[in-house]
């Protein structure tokens, strides 16, 4: 119960895997939700640094001859908790004396903080920016470019991101993927999904051309141009396997040739479903190569949500599966910012999703299918890639696990069958697709995994990004030109502009700026370096309790192009 309630907080302190709770033993299913209460109790300690400081002072003076206290904040807090008991065992008077004594020479207890450059190097490690190339000094695309970044909390990070330009059709694809029960599925989806979408969008002739090229061993037409950070990798070993599955898909598309022009919405839905199907099939068939065999099984048994945007001219499609979000930043006429959601979350907070899930299963399962805000009491997102545990029949699962490699057999999780598992599949990868026609006031789109949305309200997200983008890129030069301006007024204006520039200057990347706020915001909505430093210096094993992986893509729209064409059309 504790874990469930704490997950509702903005800052998730739920210990262990959040989306799927792994029971220690299959016979004691409900236990997991109460697992590890200790960190939850620690939480107020770490939040309240005052208490922490006093404790560490006391501990410091008492035990400095016993142990050299690590200056590392998080560790010292852990120790404080246990040493507090020790401290109270001493006689109060002695304790008091020593406390006074300590204060006389230990004026401020030594604390560990990351310096601003260290903080920056952590925040900027994964940042990536892409600017749509200009031709003849002009960018005629409706997209100016995008900034993306991710901050790990899991080790290794389970989030993935992708961005690519479609080369055979127009448009740009951007997506964030949030993995659970490992990163294998998110990795596979981030590599493969855009190819499935691109292929779905291709006209019949191009598909034929590509197939002929493969047949005769000629060079393939490039389908996608990727925009990758060096840390975004593709699996080399599986590429052949993935390619064969993709080729089967386009061969079917060629055979199915309907002669109709491709509808983007349909293409997106087909691509999502097809990829999930391929992931499932590959795991059932297996692979003679033992490494690949294990890989496809890991992909299938882990899961991933996906939130993908396709921008082509003024047409923006967002396809979402799971609980990542796409948020449009709209600048009102008065200059203020408002957030327009272009996706709905597929989780227990979404009434219609609960309704859908319940309708898909017999009345008898109504109570068990969504329990404790989780699918079958286990899974938080109600739609996802992979997760064959929630898709395959029990027989199939058992057969695959038994014939699978030993590593799979040793894994408690894969062997365990969800409770009340009667009418699979319970889970689908089918996305909800929202179409939006871009308007001049639509300035940017934020795609982010739930790690961001848990910590920040969408309105704040849009405001922070909006102010950042206008501050840096749209700081118009001042011209006096005919107005009555006094020296004093001008001076005031310039000083204010200077202050504004210096505050946003440290980030060149809107996504980094957003992460800085998400992790470091204090109660006043401004970045608190002390807090930022603490959050980033948490050791790996603790980080996941205070925050989730965060992945953000901020796409900036070209309002000049959008505005100009709107005028033409109306």
């Amino acid at each position, binding site marked *: 119960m504790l874990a469930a309630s704490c997950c509702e907080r903005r800052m998730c302190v739920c210990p262990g895997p959040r989306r799927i709770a792994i029971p220690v033993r299959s016979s004691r299913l409900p236990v997991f939700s109460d697992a590890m209460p200790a960190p939850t109790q620690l939480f107020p300690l770490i939040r309240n640094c005052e208490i922490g400081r006093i404790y560490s002072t006391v501990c410091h003076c008492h035990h400095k001859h016993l142990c050299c206290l690590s200056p590392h904040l998080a560790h010292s807090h852990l120790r404080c908790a246990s040493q507090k008991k020790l401290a109270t065992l001493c006689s109060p008077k002695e304790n008091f004396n020593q406390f006074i004594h300590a204060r006389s020479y230990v004026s401020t207890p030594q604390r560990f903080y990351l310096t601003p450059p260290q903080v920056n190097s952590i925040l900027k490690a994964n940042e990536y920016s892409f600017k749509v190339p200009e031709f003849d000094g002009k960018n005629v695309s409706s997209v100016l470019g995008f900034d993306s970044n991710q901050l790990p909390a899991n080790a290794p990070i389970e989030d993935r991101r992708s961005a690519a330009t479609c080369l055979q059709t127009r448009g740009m694809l951007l997506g964030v993927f949030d993995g659970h029960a490992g990163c294998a599925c998110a990795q596979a989806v981030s590599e493969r999904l855009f190819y499935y979408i691109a292929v779905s969008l291709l006209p019949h002739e191009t598909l034929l051309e590509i197939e002929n090229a493969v047949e005769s061993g000629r060079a393939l037409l490039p389908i996608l141009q990727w925009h990758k950070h060096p840390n975004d990798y593709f699996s080399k070993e599986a590429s052949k396997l993935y390619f064969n599955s993709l080729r089967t898909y386009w061969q079917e598309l060629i055979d199915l040739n309907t002669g109709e022009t491709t509808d983007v919405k349909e293409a997106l839905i087909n691509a999502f479903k097809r990829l999930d199907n391929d992931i499932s099939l590959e795991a059932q068939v297996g692979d003679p190569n033992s490494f690949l065999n294990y890989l496809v099984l890991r992909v299938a048994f882990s899961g991933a949500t996906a939130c993908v945007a396709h921008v082509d001219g003024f047409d923006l499609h967002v396809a979402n599966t799971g609980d990542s979000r796409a948020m449009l930043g709209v600048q009102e006429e008065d200059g203020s910012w408002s957030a327009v959601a272009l996706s709905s979350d597929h989780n227990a907070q979404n009434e219609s999703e609960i309704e859908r899930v319940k309708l898909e299963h017999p009345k008898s399962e109504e109570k068990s299918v969504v329990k404790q805000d989780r699918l079958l009491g286990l899974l938080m997102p109600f739609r996802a890639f992979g997760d064959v545990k929630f898709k395959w029949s029990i027989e199939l699962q058992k057969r695959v696990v038994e014939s699978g490699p030993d590593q799979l057999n040793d894994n408690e999780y894969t062997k365990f069958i969800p409770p009340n598992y009667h009418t699979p599949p319970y889970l689908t990868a089918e996305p909800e697709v929202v179409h939006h026609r871009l308007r001049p006031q639509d300035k940017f789109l934020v795609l982010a995994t739930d790690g961001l949305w848990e910590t920040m309200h969408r309105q704040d997200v849009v405001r922070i990004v909006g102010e950042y983008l206008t501050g840096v890129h749209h700081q118009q030069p*001042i011209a*006096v030109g005919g107005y009555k301006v006094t*020296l004093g007024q001008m001076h005031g204006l310039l000083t204010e502009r200077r202050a504004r520039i210096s505050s946003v200057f440290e980030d060149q990347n809107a996504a980094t700026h957003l992460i800085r706020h998400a992790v470091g915001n204090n109660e006043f909505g401004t970045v608190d370096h002390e807090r930022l430093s603490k959050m980033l210096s948490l050791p790996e094993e603790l980080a996941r309790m205070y925050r989730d992986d965060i992945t953000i893509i901020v796409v900036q729209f070209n309002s000049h192009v959008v505005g100009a064409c709107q005028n033409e059309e109306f």
Partner: protein
Amino acid sequence: MFFRLLSDVQWRTVRPRWRSKSSSQHTTTSVADPQPISLPAQAQVVICGGGIIGTSVAYHLSKLGWKDIVLLEQGRLAAGSTRFCAGIVSTVRHLSIELKMADYSNKLYQQLEQETGIKTGYVKTGSISLAQTQDRLISLKRIASRLSVMGIPCQIMAPKQVAHLHPLINIHDLVGAMYVPDDAVVSSADVSLALASAASRKGVQIHERTSISHVMVQKGCVTGVETDRGPIECQYFVNCAGQWAYELGLSNEEPVSIPLHACEHFYLLTRPLKKPLESNTPTIADPDGRIYIRSWQGGILSGGFEKNPKPIFTEGRNQLEIQNLHEDWDHFEPLLSSLLRRMPGLEALEIMQLVNCPESFTPDMRCIMGESPTVQGYFVLAGMNSAGVSFGGGAGKYLAEWLVNGRPAENVWPLDLKRFGALQSSRTFLRHRVMEVMPLIYDLKVPRWDFQTGRQLRTSPLYDRLDAQGARWMEKHGFERPKYFVPPGKDLLALDQSKTFYKPDWFDIVGSEVKCCKEAVCVIDMSSFTKFEISSTGDQALEVLQYLFSNDLDVPVGHIVHTGMLNETGGYENDCSIARLNKRSFFMISPTDQQVHCWAWLKKHMPNDSNLLLEDVTWKYTALNLIGPRAVDVLSELSYAPMTPEHFPSLFCKEMSVGYANGIRVMSMTHTGEPGFMLYIPIEYALHVYNELMSVGQKYGIRNTGYYALRSLRIEKFFAFWGQDLDTFTTPLECGREFRVKLDKGMDFIGRDALMQQKQDGVCKRFTMFILEDHDTDLDLWPWWGEPIYRNGRYVGKTTSSAYSYTLERHVCLGFVQNFDEETGEALVVTPDFINRGEYEIDIAGQRFQAKAKLYPFSSLFTQRRRKDEMELSGYHGK
């Protein structure tokens, strides 16, 4: 749209000849103007550029009587930087030649309106330079003491007095100020028009909207210019193209390198104050706040030189006329803050405009004047470092004299184009350097300042070795030279903190280097010196050199001669040492910054003879100077040759082996007067020889030393250096070097007649050494150079260099003493008697220190061994 900013002039009311046909053309930006007058086919002089500089040159040339002059302007007259110039004429300058130019300009502009009838907007406002710090006040006092000996009134005053002179100024953060009542403001465009009009009346033809594509050159001489309206043949070409001068210089087949680069410069114009500011309100310069403020049409005009300038037009062509460039308020913010701090009452004053007008800057903050070293007849006057109006008049006068008389009436070496070479021509270098130069205009100018940008261009092969041993570097003509060596473990102050007018933090370091030179042996890398080789098939080399140099060079092979390269008036064009390598070839060593000047002089005067070869071998040799009594021991141990004076007399040159390396030119001379040797080492042996010297020298206490120690040594020895003490107006007789002149040998050489005449008449100035008597090295301001010398309370001259002598434990200043007639101010003959019978004082920033004058060095005090050159000296002294 053109609008005239500072002037309400009069394109219509004034109708000089060159604009007789149409006056309306100037109010429109018409594409095809009817050209009223066709270009002449030829002229004696073509001047390019119709700004204040070009018109000033034309004006002065016509005044000197030259008539056949054409001035070409690509846009309209005074439409470049001149149009936007703030128009402040100020004599507050650090260099004495700049001070003289500004003083002359001021006097010229003052009477220009009367002379030409054109309103120039001249108002004698006076100027107040503010000091927010004590160091700044010292700097102002130094200028004040120079101004007053020039007869320019000036006054150092307390902050309270400033408040009386200016109604708006906030004096709370000031420590003092300098008031120069004669400084003025003008409308620079109108001054330029007045000069053009006066020149035009004297026959100068002025053509606007005519641009020059390139200058035609044949056999290294100017033959004409090619314009967009046809060619003009000419004998002289003067490049006064301002920001465009660099590109114009490179457009010739034989490029002329004119190192300058433009930076954006901002100033603010306001509407009138409620109670309009009087037009004669003094101009304010607040260098610590980086701003200047003058009154302008009842309001103010205020600009400045910011710390982070914006270079512009690096890649290429500027506009024909300067249009309004982008007004960058954010960039101006620090200057605006500074303005409001200085005059808080201006908060409510309404802005009229922020003007962005690019100005051109040079690599050393001094303007560029003179004839090209590569193309005869190609003259340049440009790169005014935003002081075009202050310098315009004087600079134009000097350049006109240069053309007409072959030389200007003053020593303009600090401004001479030939101080630069092609090596300063890189666009990247210029861009980086001007970003340092522009803020420097208002930075504190302390002694021994080194530029930080554009460094490490020319280095000796030993650079890294020396740097690793703690060398601190200075730069001369792009060459890195060690100043001194910081011993390991010792840390000097950061650069900014060691900016001082007092005793510097390296005092003890240099002291120990000097001590080592006196007692043991030191090695100093002097590779930057300019090195030429002159050789011929027959006796041509000797013949030429005998004519070009004042001392007798027909000496036995292996001898070294100190000699001057004089001009027709007997002044030093160069001071060098020449070694006779064999019968037909000579090795010549000159100061570093002579590389371009000396080359040009030799080329100009040498006959065009294919059998006579002149080669610049500067880059071929690394020069190491071994100084000190143990130099002999080090060298003889390394060469297995006796190096004692009996075997290797002073001023002797021999090729020998040092260590494993053969063919090292060893010369028994130093540039400081200490015993020692110069080693000219082919560069591939440099590291080897250096390593050998250091390892063998260890037991003799060898150490590295730098130029500061060298400087102290040579000044206490009364050695004059060309470029600092000697210039083109100094003759050998004036600095006690008659023994180095072959007057009695019956040989002709350049400058002989002038020297004969001077010998007969006596000299009017004399190089003198001063030892400061009541000067406290630790507490008093240090002398630098340019300090006035007073004899019996009367001004008699200025110092040219100074240094602390660690031997005498006193400061030594070198300088020239003159004898001005009390009534007429005429320069009279200065006899040794006149020198000896005076009580002397040196004025350092307004404080006078007693000094003892000496005409001869303390030779006996220093040397253990009598050396050849001192024998010569004493021989001369005996006469």
